[in-house]
């Protein structure tokens, strides 16, 4: 047990140090650690051989016969950060979305494949006009807020007005919603949306959250931001919603308890109580899970591969790895502020120099896939014709030679004469603080670049500063990640030329064909044609290599064995319909007693 304790202690302390370097430290300091750590760390992890991963019992769908389900069970879900506010129009982080979506329903939602759909519990009818410039929604009668007041078309109109109001600070839901130029209540149950332009993404714009007018309009004169003042502060933390759960208690920095709303008009969820427990430390989270006090936690790659093979874990839980449509990248600044990365050959050489297979094994424990561009291979936008750029230092060196960066035999670094000055190929990669995996990856990259005469330095920067420098284009190269929007049109802000000034095209990528294709994709309503457009975008951007694409990441979870009915989506297991609402526990297997932890 002493070994065990020591091993875990050390893991907790040095979890972020690369395993091999850590081993060296360990070996030099204490010989009695040798037996326990060595073998484990050098063996590479293979999730396919792990008997606890993606076990079919986790995915077992909910039975038709409800008597087989324990409908009084409590589900404990971990949040590693606290929601700030439960009013869905102010939701801005994962934490807020996760809780708020249990409390608020709406006429529109999307499924695990990111397909937009109407919610049959809310919608009697939804018709888009032929010209795509307007749409009419008919609500089902009898819908209610948690306080019993009826949900009407006026609530929808009110919510739209609140969101587009400049005085209401709700950055996350404003975009999109402001492209609706009018929202009119035709009667108590009918809403007409008028769009700014006939584009294929309008259906996403109508999916804004709905808040109760009768409660929010009362002090609006005094506090037009719907946020400050005691009244709104209270209301936003104890919201009156319309979803399948009601808020029961919010203990700051500890937990949020939700109770099933038995009057919910649609399919009621299987768990009577839903508790979001806030545990910020990843090790404490795993220990709490192993004690059975959490039902679902997010695992780090290292925990997934190396710290969950104990009997303690396998007695209680399974592991779930699900590919996300999210990718990590090294972004190159191509705006001309440095002499290196405006040249596509140089960027391609960089991609040839990144040893992705090794990084997947050593940094991501084989829990990631090589990234082949901005869209995921499972998505309809992915272009199967692209030529993957393999790790090949010889080709990288040849490309750099071709681009004029020639090795100086005296010191081994590459140089080029730019505007009469001899410039050394030397740049800095900016890494956000706390991104331990990125730091490890950068070490491998640095070594390989050095072997072909390129001098890469790394610099770790605190997150707020990192973002500020990206926004101001003050970087040569930086490492970051993008998640996926629900529609590929969300890439508009990343890749179009004019978004260098106002959007998130930080590196100054510019390709007139890509600009044009994004315009076409927005205006196209025929799915097949749209598909071809985004596939072309995917191919061009991959060939242009504005980023060196690293890996698609996976979401990793630990889930208690008694939970079934889990579905995965390109964004993990939460934030789509039905997500948690389809989870279930077999009758008789629910939490019998809530143990004191």
């Amino acid at each position, binding site marked *: 047990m002493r070994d065990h304790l020591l091993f875990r202690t050390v893991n907790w302390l040095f979890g972020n140090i690369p395993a091999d370097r850590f081993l060296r430290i360990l070996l030099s300091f204490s010989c009695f650690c040798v037996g326990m750590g060595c073998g484990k760390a050098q063996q590479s992890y293979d999730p396919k051989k792990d008997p606890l991963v993606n076990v079919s019992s986790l995915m077992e769908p909910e039975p038709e016969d409800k008597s087989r389900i324990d409908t009084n069970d409590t589900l404990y879900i971990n949040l590693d950060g606290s929601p700030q506010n439960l009013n869905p129009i102010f939701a801005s982080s994962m934490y807020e979305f996760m809780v708020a979506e249990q409390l608020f329903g709406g006429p529109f939602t999307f499924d695990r494949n990111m397909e937009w759909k109407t919610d049959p519990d809310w919608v009697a009818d939804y018709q888009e006009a032929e010209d795509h410039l307007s749409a009419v929604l008919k609500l089902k009668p009898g819908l209610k807020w948690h306080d019993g007041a009826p949900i009407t078309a006026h609530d929808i109109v009110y919510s739209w007005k609140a969101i587009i109001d*400049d005085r209401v600070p709700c*950055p996350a839901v404003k975009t999109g919603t402001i492209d609706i130029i009018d929202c009119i209540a035709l009667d108590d149950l009918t809403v007409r949306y008028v769009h700014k332009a006939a584009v294929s993404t309008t259906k996403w714009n109508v999916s804004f959250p709905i808040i109760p007018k009768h409660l929010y309009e009362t002090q609006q004169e005094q506090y037009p931001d719907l946020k400050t003042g005691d009244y709104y502060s209270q209301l936003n933390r104890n919201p009156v919603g319309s979803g399948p759960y009601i808020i029961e208690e919010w203990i700051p920095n500890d937990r949020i308890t939700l109770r099933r709303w038995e009057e919910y008009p649609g399919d009621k969820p299987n768990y009577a109580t839903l508790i979001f427990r806030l545990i910020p430390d990843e090790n404490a989270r795993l220990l709490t899970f192993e004690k059975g006090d959490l039902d679902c936690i997010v695992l780090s790659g290292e925990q997934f591969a190396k710290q969950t093979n104990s009997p303690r874990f396998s007695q209680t839980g399974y592991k779930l790895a699900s590919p996300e449509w999210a990718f990590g990248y090294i972004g190159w600044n191509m705006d001309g502020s440095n002499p290196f990365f405006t040249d596509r050959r140089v960027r391609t050489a960089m991609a040839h120099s990144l040893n992705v297979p090794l990084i997947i094994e050593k940094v991501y424990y084989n829990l990631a896939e090589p990234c082949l561009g901005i869209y995921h291979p499972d998505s309809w936008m992915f272009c199967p014709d692209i030529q993957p750029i393999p790790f090949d230092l010889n080709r990288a060196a040849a490309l750099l030679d071709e681009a004029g960066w020639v090795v100086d035999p005296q010191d081994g670094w590459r140089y080029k004469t730019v505007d009469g000055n001899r410039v050394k190929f030397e740049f800095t990669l900016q890494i956000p603080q706390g991104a331990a995996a990125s730091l490890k990856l950068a070490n491998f990259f640095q070594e390989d670049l050095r072997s072909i005469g390129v001098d890469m330095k790394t610099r770790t920067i605190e997150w707020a500063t990192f973002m500020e420098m990206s926004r101001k284009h003050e970087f040569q190269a930086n490492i970051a990640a993008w998640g996926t929007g629900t529609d590929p049109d*969300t890439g508009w802000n990343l890749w179009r030329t004019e978004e260098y000034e106002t959007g998130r095209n930080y590196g100054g990528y510019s390709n007139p064909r890509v600009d044009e294709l994004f315009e076409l994709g927005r205006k196209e309503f025929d799915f097949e044609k749209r598909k071809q457009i985004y596939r072309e975008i995917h191919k061009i951007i991959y060939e242009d290599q504005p980023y060196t694409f690293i890996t698609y990441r996976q979401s990793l979870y630990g889930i208690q064995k008694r939970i079934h009915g889990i579905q995965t989506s390109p964004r993990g297991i939460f934030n789509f319909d039905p997500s948690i609402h389809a989870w279930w526990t077999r009758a008789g297997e629910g939490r019998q007693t809530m143990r004191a932890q």
Partner: protein
Amino acid sequence: MLSYTLHRIILAIPTLLGITLVTFFIINLAPGDPAALQAQEVMDPRISNRVYEQLREYYGLDRPIVIRYLEWLKRIGTFDFGNSMTPDSRRVSVKIMERLPATISLSVLSLGIGFALAIPIGILSGARRNGWFDTVSSTILYILYAIPSYVMAIPLILWVSIELDLLPFQGMRSDNVAQLTPTGQIVDLVKHFILITFCFTYGALAYQSRFVRQNLLEVFRQEYILTARAKGLSEFTVVLKHAFRNTLIPLVTLFGLTFPQILGGSVILEVMFNWPGIGRLFFESILQRDYPTVMALSVISAGLVLLGTLLADLAYAVVDPRVRYD
């Protein structure tokens, strides 16, 4: 005494002003601002600079920094700390009040236990210098002093909470607390306090008891102790009445310096034990560039430092009859 106190309080005002001025400019001039962070929070790339500008306007960040500082001063004059610049926009005073019970109870307990144990340990080991108690306690305390509390916390949690399952280690209450009897609830609360209080206390305990011992040894070298012993006074009277009383002066200084820690908290321990304390609030506020919360906490802790030193100075007069403030 009264005029001295008033004089000190008046002197404290420019000091406090200086501290706020420096803090305000440092935090505001650090790259990034709350608007940018919130506009970037969601991975949705559609959020544009327009939204960012609106947020800046909402928080008043579009105005010159000097004006913002003056406005902040005006508000602070009425003890109004303003609204937080995080997405919750709650009143800063409410956010701080929410964290106070956890922080103050822990630090008062820890300070109390620390001094309550340090003084007898220090006296015992000082009085019998190099005796068995001195050697054993010194060894143990030196070892403890050398181990950072967050390192100590890990085996404690793993051993006491996980292997033996004796004490909880997350937060301040158990899941089933509502079903417990009032006594049961108190027991539950006490159990949650034990591990974190230990981790909070032992380092200071080691330091403080060594401090008491050292001062006592210093005093023992004085001639009046020799006199007292020569008079045939009992060792008890010599140590407690003559020697110990004279070690109180440096101890009071130490207490005055420790006093501001009442609101300090510890980010790492609070995260490990999931303790809802001020340390984490301060740290998170800095990362989120939540200027009003950072300023409020800085002012409070600066105020406490000034108050601590003032109280220590006043206490000198109580413990040392030679000190008079007239």
